[in-house]
């Protein structure tokens, strides 16, 4: 089950009732800590949707804490972000690039895509999993006309960056 976290509610609860912008590093640390607490209350592997819809600004310091550091620290969890606008994406891309991280984001129409410094073939492999839902390296290799071993390497990269899930020989898109 996906747990949805409304970031603006977390901001108001953990920092100040009056704030609507994710700016400054202390704010980012407080918000990330609250997200980590919410995620830790669930057992096992978690999938969390972080909703930016009601967040005004996101500065680089906050993107570093709320997105990059969250991904680096919550190693047992998977995350999707939604409700992003262009300026959010800028700050998040900068933070992801710093650590070579990747992130699944969901648009208003439900379509998902990847942010972060990924190679073209890694993106194509992710899109193949997104299309197939569940597939092993052979299926993805067939889809992309690649050698299975090579496709397997791409999928492992995606799994290690936690933008696909892994179940035995299969790789799964997020539900």
């Amino acid at each position, binding site marked *: 089950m996906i747990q949805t976290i409304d970031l603006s509610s977390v901001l108001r609860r953990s920092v100040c009732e009056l704030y609507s912008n994710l*700016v400054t590093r202390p704010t980012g640390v407080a918000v990330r800590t609250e997200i980590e607490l919410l995620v830790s209350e669930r057992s096992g592997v978690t999938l969390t949707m972080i909703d930016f819809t009601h967040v005004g*600004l996101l*500065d680089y310091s906050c993107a570093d804490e709320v997105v990059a550091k969250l991904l680096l620290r919550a190693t047992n969890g998977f995350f999707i972000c939604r409700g992003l606008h262009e300026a959010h994406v800028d700050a998040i891309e900068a933070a992801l690039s710093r650590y070579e991280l990747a992130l699944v984001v969901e648009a208003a129409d439900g379509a998902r895509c990847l942010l972060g410094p990924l190679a073209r073939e890694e993106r194509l492999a992710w899109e193949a999993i997104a299309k197939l839902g569940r597939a092993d390296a052979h299926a993805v290799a067939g889809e992309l006309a690649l050698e299975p071993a090579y496709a397997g390497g791409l999928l492992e990269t995606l799994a290690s960056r936690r933008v696909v899930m892994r179940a035995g020989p299969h790789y799964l898109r997020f539900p």
Partner: protein
Amino acid sequence: MTQIISLPLSLDDASFEQVFQALSQSAPDDKVLLDARHTRWATPYGLTALLTVAQTRTTTPAFVPPEADETLSYWARTGFFSHAESLYDIRGPFPKLRPGGESHVLLEITEVTKSGDVHDVVERIKERAQKILAELNIDSSATMRFVVTLSEVCQNVVEHAGTSGWVAVQTYQWKKRLGRRVVQIAVSDGGLGFRRSLESLPGRQTPASGDRWDDGMALEEAVIQGVSRFRDRGRGQGLANTRNFLGKWSGKLSIRSGTARIAIVPSWDEDTPLCVGLPYFPGAQVLITIPERIAQ
């Protein structure tokens, strides 16, 4: 004996060097009087730096306000006197206007001490920024990035200065210099400065004898290489991202700290990228200038 420093007719980042030069001749506890009687114009840099000057003195300095009514009124509307009252011994009349009501002042002079102040600055400027940047033909999509830039430079004060600082944002006509309007962000503090901040990096190697290490090099490390006093890889990105934003909008960034000043110089300007050996002044004085976009 009181040292009298006559402020220039126009008080901006270039002319303020005269003030820094004069101040460098005195000890921080010497009595100084800043005489602004003949000053007619001041940029956000000039006004925020004036407040910082008072903070760096251990003896309350004296200040003589401008004589011109228009200048006095404008300085009052920027909020200058409401802050200067508590920092200077003001010798002469000045209007008791409340800050605000000035259409070209995007953000009145605001003190920045803690993270919450940055939130307040961002909240206050967001709506006005949209309108005024549109007047400069700057894409509405850039408004958010402009405010993020403001947030990042204000955070430098909170995280690195070790003291409070001042921020002001204003638009005005740069007829002589550029022939168009500009928006300027000025952030000034009298705190640690870039060199001392970087020196506090845990485990930082002291440069070998003879190796260059000065305010200029500290500015190069922080602004060009993105070095921060924190070991964390995510740190030191604020200024790098500010540079990226300014690059897209032909903006200029200049930072003075200690005895040096670094500038990221766009094609419309002829400033020197790095000046060293300037008169010492503590802290950091940041100036961002974004010109009006001219339709191609």
